[in-house]
């Protein structure tokens, strides 16, 4: 069949964007909460190791927990204050994790302690990666994977293209949009660091067509000595996922089960890039991030620069909520997590806070049997057959599900979104994947034991 290049991927969905409510609002600094709660699991990998003791006084930017191994990052004090307690604290997953209660000094300022700068000109690849780890940087798009691990090019592979991900395809969220409009210089500095770290020969910034102002702004601010191409792609969910973005921009497919480096690409979120560009020249650690607070239940919607560890309850008190809110999500509505209690805190991976009231939530009353309409097949960006997988999941046929590429699913939720029978497809797959993973781990253990 003829293959027309459309600079986008196949399938996908078009949920209502709801970005107008906040995309015109500049980033505003959030006040310090009286007490900040820092869980040590804010990233994928080993929890950070606490280096402070109860009663100790720390200053904003000071290292308070160090990385525990390679796939881990350190943590810095988001505010000057006193360590009150070191106990287990609740996290969004519902599990408790080691954490720190930090009571802010009433006189705490925005000033941040400087560290050892990473010099762009003289630093080696290893030093830049070390600098990124030291700054505690993780993927700010939501995955919270340690960035230095992602940037480490494996032996025998090479990186040709560095892709800066400014897609932000989740409805409601406008943090990346505002970062591109307000932190262009940091982004370009970050790109310089990333180019050196990865050895990439070209840079593409991918932006969806609904952020034309960001495209124009970046376009106008590209430094003369930096080769950057900015590509505008049509609006479609889930374009912001690494695989889809690589297909949209490069017309390459990441092999099943493989990483983007297999097709010589590395994808970094635009806010993460800006953070690298801002922190590394000063040797600082990450203390705050931009978060979109929106949704029908929020009174003062906007994009806020919020210190990491700020309790969700404090955040909602500051922006004001409708008394009737029934649901709060961290992240976007497609892949974000529903919050079960407001005592958890903002973490590095929090890109948005959405509050809905009872009347805004349309919950399907009834689940019908699958009528094989094929809507999910036409929505799945990975060309899986969610209808078939859903039936197999009902029968707990996990081996057959694996044969049908269950483990390729990255849980974008497009299938559940379109299903007219309201079958919770991606929810089935998420559960099935965790069962398959557990079984695989158990099988491996048995094998090791036998040998």
């Amino acid at each position, binding site marked *: 069949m003829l293959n027309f290049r459309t600079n986008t991927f196949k399938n996908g*969905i078009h*949920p209502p964007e709801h970005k107008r409510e906040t995309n015109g609002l500049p980033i505003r600094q959030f006040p310090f909460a009286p007490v900040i709660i820092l869980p040590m699991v804010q990233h994928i990998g080993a929890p950070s190791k606490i280096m402070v003791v109860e009663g100790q006084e720390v200053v904003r930017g000071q290292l308070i927990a160090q990385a525990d191994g390679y796939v881990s990052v350190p943590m810095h004090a988001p505010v000057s204050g006193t360590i009150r307690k070191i106990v287990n604290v609740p996290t969004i997953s519902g599990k408790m994790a080691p954490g720190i209660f930090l009571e802010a000094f009433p006189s705490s300022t925005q000033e941040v302690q400087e560290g050892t700068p990473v010099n762009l000109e003289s630093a080696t690849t290893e030093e830049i990666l070390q600098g990124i780890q030291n700054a505690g940087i993780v993927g700010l798009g939501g995955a919270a994977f340690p960035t230095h691990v992602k940037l480490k090019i494996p032996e025998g592979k090479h990186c040709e293209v560095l892709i800066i991900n400014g897609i932000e395809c989740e409805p409601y969220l406008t943090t990346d949009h505002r970062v591109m409009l307000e932190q262009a210089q940091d982004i370009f500095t970050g790109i310089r660091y990333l180019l050196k770290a990865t050895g990439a020969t070209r840079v593409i910034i991918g932006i969806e067509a609904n952020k034309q102002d960001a495209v124009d702004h970046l376009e106008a601010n590209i430094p003369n000595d930096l080769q950057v191409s900015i590509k505008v792609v049509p609006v479609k969910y889930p374009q912001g996922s690494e*695989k889809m973005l690589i297909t949209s921009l490069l017309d390459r*497919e*990441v*092999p*099943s*089960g*493989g990483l983007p480096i297999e097709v010589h690409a590395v994808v970094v979120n635009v806010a993460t890039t800006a953070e690298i560009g801002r922190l590394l020249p000063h040797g600082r650690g990450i203390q705050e991030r931009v978060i979109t607070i929106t949704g029908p239940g929020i009174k003062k919607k906007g994009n806020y620069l919020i210190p990491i560890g700020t309790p969700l309850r404090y955040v909602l008190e500051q922006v004001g*909520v*409708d008394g*009737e*809110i*029934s*649901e*709060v*999500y961290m*992240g976007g*509505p*497609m*892949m*974000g997590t*529903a*919050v*079960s*209690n*407001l005592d958890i805190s903002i973490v590095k991976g929090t890109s948005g806070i959405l509050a809905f009231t009872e009347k805004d*939530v*349309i*919950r*399907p009353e009834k689940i*019908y*049997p*699958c*009528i*094989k*309409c*094929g809507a999910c*097949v*036409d929505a799945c*960006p*990975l*060309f*899986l*057959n969610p209808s*078939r997988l859903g039936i197999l999941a009902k029968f707990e046929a996990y081996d057959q599900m694996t*044969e*049908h*590429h269950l483990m*390729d699913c990255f849980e974008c*939720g497009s299938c*559940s*979104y*379109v*299903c*007219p*029978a*309201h079958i919770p497809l*991606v*929810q089935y797959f998420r559960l099935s994947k965790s069962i398959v993973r557990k079984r695989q781990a158990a099988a491996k253990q048995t094998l090791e034991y036998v040998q």
Partner: protein
Amino acid sequence: MYSKTLHISTSPHIAGGLSIEVIMRNVVWALVPVALFAVYTFGLNALMVLVTTVISCLLTEHFLCKISKKESTISDWSAVITGLLLGLTLPPIFPLWMAFFGGVIAIALGKFIFGGLGYNVFNPALVSRAVLQAAFPVAITTWFPAFTDNRFSVVNASVFTFPFMSPGVDGLSGATPLAAFKFDQVITNNSDLALGLISGSTGETCAVLILLGGLYLIVRNMMNWRIPVAILGTVLVLSGILHLIDSQAYPSPIFMLFSGGLMLGAIFMATDMVGSPITSLGVLIYGTVIGILVVVIRIWGGLPEGVMYAILLGNALSPHIDNLVKPRVYGTVKQPQQS
């Protein structure tokens, strides 16, 4: 906000809007003009047949749900569609007790026995029509002329035939265009065909209204346009070639398209989501196979009309098509062989 418990669920937290109920209801809306025109053409007889099949389908579905101790599923509108489609494939003076029996067969044998909505292999209305054709070969080929003067005042006696009695044959005056061609080599005027000014089953007559209904559903994204396009396209091309070879022996493609139940079948029956394949390519294959079968049965088969059997065979093939035509999964080089 501070005391209330929050509702938690896993993502996605938003949904796309369409639901099965809405789709089914819209299919009914799309069928209503076709049914109204059938009543206009054939009068009270057709109205009674249609009402009987719809009521019979709804009653059967409700009753079967009750005896299997499940919640009644009549509110999903699918039984209404089955009833309407069945009624539209029957002759206008079909005895009502047979029509009622047809509705019971459609739901019980066509759908419920497989496990209800979503699990049926064949289109329920066509299963029933096939059973009726085998059981009552005379009644189901007893046609009635369109636009009789007293169609709104007089009900044909055969409609009220007692159960298990054969109707007196008194309506044979209106042969269908396909039968006229097959047995008497008479070609019906094309515009009469398209506008439905002909004799035939209640709903098989007005191609224009059927097309409009289909177009509405396609625009609303409730129907896979590939199915009717593949079927009608195949019939057009295949019968076109045959007509070019020998225009005396083979009818023109336009006649083939607009006669018999092809329009109704291609647009409202073959597109039944449950019985058709799930992938775009699979659907095209399915449509092409049905199109070929229609032409083969009509021209070389013993029956004047072949749409019903063509679609039923297509339904039977579609699970196999789904197993054979699997989209290549993103990031894999070749389609892995799985069964």
